[in-house]
């Protein structure tokens, strides 16, 4: 009976996927995408993850976990697996899986969908589960520490530098997405601004009024946030008030930098922690709501399965389908950042090793599903509208007339009236060139919500979606700046000890300023770039994130080789090889391509030539030197990412070769086996 059920799931999945992939010119319904995704996940979880857990990882339910052995009632606490699942999912799911698939939709819905499904089931989920188990077996040690222990200091430093660089690029691109969503939109700006006093209010409530009562505080806070969305709409109706919240990109960029700096130096209970509670609450609620709404609405997908832009000429970002679809969608398929979370708080909560599969593999599956939903929200829009929102003025033409003409000439008809009406119904003045993915996702979400839960309120749903994205982007920005600060303090402390003291206020301020200046620079350049900036920063982030995934998989592969798991090593080695190929070829193209929309150096040289020949307008000439320098810096960074990647791969291969030859290697850092129930230090 059970076997019959799984055969049924396999057949249904194959039928749905086949139907989608062999699309016979009819439109595909989103429901088929959901069915295909759910079947792939179900099969991956039931069979592949079980096989990997049993054979490669030798998960042992009789082994005491650090939560049991080191239980201290605070961070090491054996916790029910569904609760750990909730915490882990909330920790790994950020804005990444919403933005990547939206941008990659320029290739059509099929390439992104296939990569999200295959990448997660064979890559991302496996990486997360493996890291979670390895860290659980090592008392919850971090990726960097495991790299140092198991491979040696070279691998350890590579992991540390890689992590710091990815944090800087990640925050810059997320900051840019928020800025682009708020630019000249009083409603969005007022709503996002309002989230700050609301978070502080909740912080004071949780500290002074009812310490630790998180549920009631979150309900209160989320109600206030919804009120802020509606209030933003009223404010938008009053011209004098609306004008007060109408900022250009640069003004907002300075605001985001100031905000990030404050959030990093203020006590966590005041702003960071309460904002995170609100964003987690919203995140879980909205994801569930969105999934239900997509099923109720079951929209037709209007984007073709594959567009002509797989040849690299796409307006959202330049580059062919290989390797750029695999770089653009990182989170949702495989995300190196997860390895940092899976080797942090989560392993200290796991009550039994047998929970690792559900928590590691399962959470990533759910995140991948979020990416599928985001892809649906982007591709149910008229393609013309999608391209009009996501293409920068520098690519399709700065005025509305030119932009619609360019986009329509590609075979994706759209008119100025259509865009104008859409913007008006969303409560915005214009939706042209709102790059970064957030606005087009918000339009998609607004149309899903309003058609599933009753028509009307499009503007409210749109700004709810913007607020929802902004809240968790700002949470990542705060948390990332703070973590970056600790890493900078750690590094600086090795040069001059007083700079490393985490409790010294001058050192905190200095290190925070260094981190904010780091990402603030890239944010600033992104804002002044007439091509939108996202098309430069997002691929850089994708390369960095996949590099981190490759580091995590290298560490895992090295450890598993040392444990004698050579027979099954392809489970981590194949995704590692794929990421190495994808990341290296993307880096190669970003550095050496002669296409000015892809190659950093080509773009810099092209602009320098035009600047020297006086072919740029006064405005363009004013920012050109900054942009030229930035493109060259981006090329250097890309080289660095690639170097870090290969250093760690070579280090892993070196260790593996020593193992195979029977030479000495760093000893295993695994904690000694203790049977469950015996290691608890809690006297009865």
């Amino acid at each position, binding site marked *: 009976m059970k076997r019959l059920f799984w055969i049924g799931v396999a057949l249904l999945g194959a039928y749905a996927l086949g139907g989608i992939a062999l699309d016979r010119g009819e439109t595909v319904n989103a429901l088929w995408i959901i069915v295909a995704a759910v079947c792939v996940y179900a099969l991956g979880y039931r069979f592949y993850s079980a096989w990997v857990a049993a054979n490669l990882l030798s998960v042992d339910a009789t082994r005491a976990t650090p939560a049991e052995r080191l239980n201290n009632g*605070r961070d090491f606490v054996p916790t029910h697996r569904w609760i750990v699942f909730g*915490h882990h999912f909330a*920790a790994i799911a950020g804005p990444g899986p919403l933005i990547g698939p939206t941008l990659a939709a320029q290739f059509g819905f099929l390439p992104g969908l296939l990569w999200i499904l295959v990448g997660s089931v064979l890559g991302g989920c496996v990486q997360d589960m493996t890291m979670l188990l390895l860290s659980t077996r090592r008392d919850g040690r971090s990726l960097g520490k495991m790299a140092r222990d198991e491979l040696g200091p070279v691998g350890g430093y590579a992991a540390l530098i890689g992590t710091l660089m990815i944090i800087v690029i990640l925050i810059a691109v997320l900051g840019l997405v928020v800025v682009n969503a708020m630019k000249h939109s009083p409603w969005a700006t007022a709503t996002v601004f309002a989230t700050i006093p609301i978070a502080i209010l909740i912080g004071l409530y949780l*500290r002074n009024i009812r310490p630790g009562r998180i549920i009631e505080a979150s309900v209160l806070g989320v109600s206030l946030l919804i009120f802020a969305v509606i209030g933003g709409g009223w404010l938008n109706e009053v011209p004098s008030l609306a004008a007060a919240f109408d900022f250009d990109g640069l003004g907002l960029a300075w605001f985001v930098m100031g905000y990030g700096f404050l959030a990093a130096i203020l006590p966590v209970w005041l702003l960071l922690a309460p904002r995170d509670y609100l964003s987690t609450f919203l995140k879980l609620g909205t994801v569930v709501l969105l999934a239900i709404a997509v099923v109720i609405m079951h929209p037709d997908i209007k984007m073709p399965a594959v567009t002509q832009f797989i040849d690299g000429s796409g307006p959202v970002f330049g580059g062919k389908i290989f390797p750029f679809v695999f770089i653009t969608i990182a989170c949702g398929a495989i995300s190196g950042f997860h390895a940092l979370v899976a080797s942090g708080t989560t392993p200290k909560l796991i009550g039994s090793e047998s929970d690792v599969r559900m928590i590691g593999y399962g959470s990533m599956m759910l995140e991948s599903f979020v990416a599928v939903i985001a892809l649906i929200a982007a591709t149910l829009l008229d393609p013309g509208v999608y391209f009009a929102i996501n293409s920068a003025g520098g690519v399709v033409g700065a005025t509305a007339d030119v932009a619609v003409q360019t986009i329509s000439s590609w075979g994706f008809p759209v008119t100025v009236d259509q865009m104008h009406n859409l913007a008006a119904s969303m409560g915005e003045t214009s939706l042209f060139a709102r790059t970064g993915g957030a606005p087009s996702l918000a339009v998609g979400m607004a149309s899903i919500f309003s058609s599933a839960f009753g028509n009307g309120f499009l503007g409210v749903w749109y700004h709810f979606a913007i607020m929802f994205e902004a809240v968790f982007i700002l949470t990542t920005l705060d948390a990332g700046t703070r973590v970056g600060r600790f890493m900078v303090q750690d590094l600086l402390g090795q040069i001059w000890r007083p700079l490393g003291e985490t409790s010294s206020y001058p050192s905190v301020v200095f290190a925070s300023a260094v981190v904010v200046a780091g990402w603030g620079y890239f944010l600033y350049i992104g804002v002044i770039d007439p091509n939108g900036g996202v098309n430069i920063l997002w691929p850089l982030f994708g390369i960095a994130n996949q590099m981190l995934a490759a580091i995590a998989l290298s560490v895992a592969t090295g450890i598993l080789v040392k444990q004698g798991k050579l027979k099954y090593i392809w489970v981590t080695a194949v995704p590692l090889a794929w990421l190495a190929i994808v990341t290296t070829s993307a880096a190669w193209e970003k550095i050496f391509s002669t296409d000015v929309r892809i190659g950093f150096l080509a773009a810099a040289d092209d602009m320098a030539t035009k600047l020297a020949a006086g072919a740029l307008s006064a405005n363009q000439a004013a920012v050109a030197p900054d942009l030229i320098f930035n493109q060259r810096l981006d090329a250097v960074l890309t080289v660095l990412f690639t170097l870090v990647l290969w250093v760690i791969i070579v280090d892993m291969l070196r260790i593996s070769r020593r193992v195979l030859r029977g030479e000495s290697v760093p000893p295993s850092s695994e904690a000694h086996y203790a049977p469950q129930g015996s290691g608890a230090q809690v006297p009865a």
Partner: protein
Amino acid sequence: MKGRLQHVWQWLRTLAGDDAYERYCEHQQLAHAGTPVLDARAFYLEQQRQKWSGINRCC
């Protein structure tokens, strides 16, 4: 029915971390009876400090 609702509520409290202080007190009682216990606010602040000194949010 009431029991089930209570169960769900308790589950939600654990998920959100509402009962973290209760569980901490219980643990202190069991493992370190007689040693001083933090009050609710001090525990909450300590918990936040610890939570936000590592990477626990992602992209």
